[in-house]
């Protein structure tokens, strides 16, 4: 039965959309389409006539969608927000994860529940991925800062690379600061004095 169902993902992040699409396919949806926040969203949804629409909670197009579900002649069936009103834990989890989705009437409750759980897990996974990327980028920046500070110390005090690093580390420990912060101070000081 599910192979007949059509799912639509509206997301400006192609990576997250791909993650959700994979999940929907694993959940048995074979007809999955993706749209980014295009200007023709309303017309496209009319054409696609999906059974479920998954959309990022903060996406401003949701206001447009909700109006359309209320009155538009393009939507043939009544649409409700995915969350089961009685299942407030699931609602909270979904909203915290930043997921929202709309389903047409008639989609089985247990199916909706599974899909929502899948979306929540995958939205969270995507967020972790983003955080990790961000951390990796920060770590790289910090590396560069420490290398520059080391070079400054080596030149100014005639130290070896190892000695310069050791100096940064002991200073950081004594001052209860992170090495990268001390390194930044060294760079700033060098800029001011240089």
């Amino acid at each position, binding site marked *: 039965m599910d192979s007949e169902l059509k799912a639509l993902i509206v997301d400006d992040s192609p990576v997250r959309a791909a993650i959700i699409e994979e999940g929907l396919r694993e959940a048995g949806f074979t007809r999955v389409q993706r749209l980014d926040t295009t200007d023709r969203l309303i017309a496209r949804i009319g054409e696609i006539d999906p059974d479920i629409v998954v959309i990022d909670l*903060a996406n401003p197009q*949701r*206001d*447009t969608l*909700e*109006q359309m579900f209320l009155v538009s002649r393009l939507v043939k069936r009544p649409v409700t927000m995915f969350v089961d009103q009685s299942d407030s834990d699931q609602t909270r989890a979904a*909203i915290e994860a930043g997921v929202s989705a709309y389903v047409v009437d008639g989609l089985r409750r247990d199916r909706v529940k599974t899909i929502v759980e899948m979306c929540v897990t995958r939205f969270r996974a995507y967020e972790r991925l983003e955080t990790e990327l961000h951390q990796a980028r920060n770590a790289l920046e910090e590396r560069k800062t420490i290398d520059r500070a080391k070079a400054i110390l080596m030149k100014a005090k005639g130290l070896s690379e190892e000695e310069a690093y050791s100096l940064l580390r002991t200073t950081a420990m004594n001052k209860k600061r992170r090495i990268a912060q001390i390194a930044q101070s060294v760079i700033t000081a060098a800029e001011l004095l240089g």
Partner: protein
Amino acid sequence: MIDVSIGYLPLTDSATLIAAAEFGFAEKEGLRLNLQRELSWATLRDRLAVGHIDAAHFLAPLAIATSLGMGQLRRELKVVFVLNANGNALTVSPALAREIAAVGEGALDHAQASAQALGALVATRKASGARPLTFASTFPFSSHTFLLRKFLALGGVDPDRDVEIVVVPPPYMVDCVDKGLIDGFCVGSPWNSLAVDQGKGVILALGSEIVPEAVEKVLAIPADAELLRNGVGEKLIRALAAAASFVEDPANREPVARALGARFEVSADVVMRTLSGELVMDAAGRRRASPAFIRFAGGALNRPDPATGAMLCAEMAGAGQLISNETVERAAAAVFDPALYDRALT
């Protein structure tokens, strides 16, 4: 300091909340307001419904719709403070403004004349088989929807048959009219004025010309919120009442305009025009001024009145959004609850 988080949309009528947070009114009551900007009403509603935020800058009819479970997520809400009356305007694309002006002498002189000229234009377009015009409101359950419908009706246009009405969140209006996706819109400040400044819109009517005194945005909180029982709500109301009087005072418009401009990333000048009600209507600099354009305090403006709830319920029924009966009307009236306001200020 007690933390209170409030979600809002970047609109001039959030001024009282911003002033309460930035000009010391909340602090004086021992509160720290954490204002969180959102870009759409649906997001704000959902965050309020699940308790991500304590309170929200809300469309008055949306508080009723959310309480009654119309549309999507349901949560019983209370309107505890009315943030403003009026502040909206109707804007059309420069191309449509030219067509309206061409209908006859004085078609852009006042709201009534413009509505009639638009009506004549819609009739001509219909007869010639041209596509129906598309207008945007900011949300189904909004004064903008009602205002738009009233304006169209003034010119004999049937809002359900003769035109298309869609929804676009306020910050996206200008862009949509510029791309030709919509022909006009009804939205709160400063988005009409921004369209004019960018040469992308012509203001056709001020909301206050169509409805002289309309409750616009409110502060909504869940009906079972702690805030209503632990004494924090009273502090919040006192902070907001003081901030509302501050915003209403013409002497404070400049600092308020600067604070709003900085938050919305728009110029303070454009916010200033909307606070003072001295609007520039088009790129040629035509002006229209109205002291009623937007109001933040004065008389009983800020006090939630159950009669407002009942009146909005009738508006919603008129727009085909609900079928009203005594039970529904009573429930809508109960959303506008003056109890906290009265406890705080007497």
